[in-house]
C-alpha cells in the first residue's frame, strides 16, 4: 500500500498555510488541489504551501501544482512555497513554477511576502 500524502491546514483569515507530509505524486497532488480549491471557494485567496515534510515530487504532482498556480492567477490570488529541499527547489525553477509563485526558504519570509 502506497503511503498517502498528509495535509494540515492552518487558516489565518484570507490566508492559509498548507503543510504537506509525504510524496507529492498524482494522489498527493490531487489532494492538495482539492484543499486549495476548497479554500479558494471559501474566499481564501492567499495560499502558502509549506513543503518541509516532503522530500519528493514527481511530474504528475508538479503538473497539478502548476494547475493550482494557474487557478490562483485567474482569481487574482497569490501562492507561495516555502521550506523546499534543494532538489525540489531546483526542479521548481526548471519547471517554471518559480515564475508565478514565490519560493521562500522559511515560513516567516513567505508569510511576509504573501501578506503584502
Amino acid at each position, binding site marked *: 500500500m502506497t503511503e498517502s500524502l498528509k495535509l494540515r491546514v492552518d487558516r489565518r483569515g484570507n490566508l492559509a498555510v498548507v503543510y504537506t507530509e509525504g510524496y507529492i505524486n498524482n494522489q498527493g497532488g490531487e489532494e492538495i488541489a482539492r484543499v486549495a480549491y476548497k479554500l479558494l471557494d471559501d474566499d481564501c485567496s492567499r495560499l502558502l504551501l509549506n513543503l518541509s515534510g516532503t522530500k519528493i515530487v514527481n511530474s*504528475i504532482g508538479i*503538473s497539478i501544482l502548476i494547475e493550482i498556480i494557474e487557478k490562483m492567477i485567474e482569481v487574482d490570488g497569490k501562492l507561495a512555497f516555502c521550506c523546499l529541499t534543494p532538489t525540489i527547489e531546483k526542479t521548481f525553477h526548471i519547471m517554471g513554477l518559480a515564475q508565478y509563485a514565490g519560493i521562500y526558504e522559511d515560513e516567516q519570509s513567505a508569510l511576509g511576502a504573501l501578506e503584502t
Partner: protein
Amino acid sequence: MNPVATAAIPDEVWREIGDLSWEGSESTLMESLLELWRDHYRCEGAALYLRRDGHYRLEASSRRGSCSRFPAGLESPTAAGPGDSPADAAPTEDGGPKLLEVPGGLIAWLGADGVTEAAPSDPLTLLLVSVLRSFELRKRLKLQSFQVNYRGVELEALYDVGLAIASTLDLEALSEEVLLRAVSLLDARRGALYLREGSRYRLDRTFGGDALASFEPETEEDGRRKMRVPDDLLPGTEHLLALPVEFHGDPRGVLAVGDRESRHGVGPFSDRDRRTLMLFANQAAIALENARLHRQELEKQRLEREMELAAEIQRQILPQGSPHVEGYDLMGWSRPARQVGGDYFDFFELDGGRLRVTVGDVTGKGIPAALLVSTLHSSLRLLLGSDPVDGELLSRLNRHIHESSAANKFITLLVAELDPSAHRLRYVNAGHNPGLCVRADGTVAQLDPGGLPVGMLPQAGYTTGEMALGSGDLVCLYSDGITEAATPEGEEFGMRRLRELLVREREHPLPEIRSRLEAVLEDFVQDEPQADDETLVLLRRCDT
C-alpha cells in the same frame, strides 16, 4: 450556416457572446460560454469534457443552484454522436448527465431537456467546440513544453547525483538520493534498493511501501547469466521495473521501481524509463564501489594502526639490551617475518646473580601471535617468579597458557637458568628446538626437549636438564625460523649448518657471530622472502 440554427440563437445571446472577455483563460471563457449554452437550452447544468488518451476529463462546467456536480472524468461514455438526436441521448447513469459528442470531447448537460436537434450544429455549440479545440491545442503545447523542461530536470538529477558521488562517501545519503531521484523521475509510486550479500540480495531501503526483505535471483537462462527478480518484489504493485546495479559486470545490487503514474492511474514502464533507471543504477554502482573501496581503505588503515601498536608493545616486551653478568657475554636478537611476530626471548635477573634466559615461539603470526607473546611474558614473570626453573613450574605455566589461549594455540619454549657463580646451566625445553652448547674444543652438546609445547594440553609433565659450562663454551638458543629458512627449491638451512657455523665462529665476538649467521642465511635463501620470525640468543662463558 444552417439558417434554422441561426434563427435559434436569439440576438441577446449574440450580444452576450460579444460582451464576453476574450482576454482571460480558456477555462473562464468556456465557463462563460457554457453558461450561455446552459441558459439557451434551459438546462440545470452544462459541462465540457476534453478527450485525451481515450479518457474524458472535465474542463469546465456551469451549474444552476442545486444542480449536481459533473463527474471529474468519464471512461468509455455513451454519447449522442453526429447525426443522433441529442434528445435521445441516454444519461450516463441514473440522474447523470447526458452527453453529446463533439470534435475533441463531449458536451454534457443535466436537468430540463431543452437540447434540440439543432444543438450539435448551432453556432453556440460550434463556438464552444472551437474554444475547446484551441484549449486542447494549448494543452498539448503546454504538455510538450512541460515534457521538454522535465528532460532538463532528469539531466540535472543525473548531474547532481554524479556530483554527490564525487564529493561524499556517505553511502547512506547516496543510496537515499539515488532511490528518491529514480522514483520521482520515473513517476513511480514505489521504489526499493537491494544490495548483494553473497548469493542473496538484501533490502537496503524502500520508498512508498513494503518490499521483500531479501531474495535470491535466478541467474541462469539458456546458458547465459540473466538476473530475474521475484514478481512480488514490491508487494501490491501491478507494474515492476527492476534492474541490476553492476560495476564492471559484477552485480552489486538491484534498483526497482513500481507502478508508473499518470493522471488516470498506473501503468507499465516504457523503454525510455528502463534507460533512465539504468542510468541511476549505474550511478548507484559507482557510489557502492566508492564506498566499498573507502571501507577497505579505512579497514586497512585500522589494521595498520593496530599492527603498529602491537609491534610497539612487542618492542617494549623484548629486551632492549643485554644484562651484564660477570664472566659471561650475552646477546639476544629477533627479527619478525611481519610487522609483528610470534617469537619471544627474554633475560630476567633472578636472586643470587642468576639469570633466566628464555626463548619461545608462538604458533601463528601477526597480532594473534603477538597477543599470546604478551600473555607468555607476563605469565613467566608472575608464575615462575624467582624460583629455580623446573618441571613443576613449567607444568603450572602450561596449565595457565592452556586456559588463557585459543584451542589451537601453543608455545614452544626453552627456559634456561644460568648460575654464573657455579657455572651451571639448568633448563627445561618444552617442545622447542634443541639448544646447542658449543664447547671450547668444538664439540657440541644439545639442550633437548623434555616435554610438550606449553598450552597444547591441559596437563603436561616436563623434565629438567642441567649442564656445566666451561670457559669459552658457547650456548645458542634459537627459533626454527633460522633452521627452517629455505631455498627457493625448498631445502632448509637445518641444524647441521647452524652447528657448523657456530663451531667455526665460536671464538668470535657474539655480535659478529650473529652478523655472520645473518649473512649466511641471506645467501642461502637467495631472493626468498623471510617466511618465519628469526630469533637468536647467545651466551658464552668468557672468564678464564
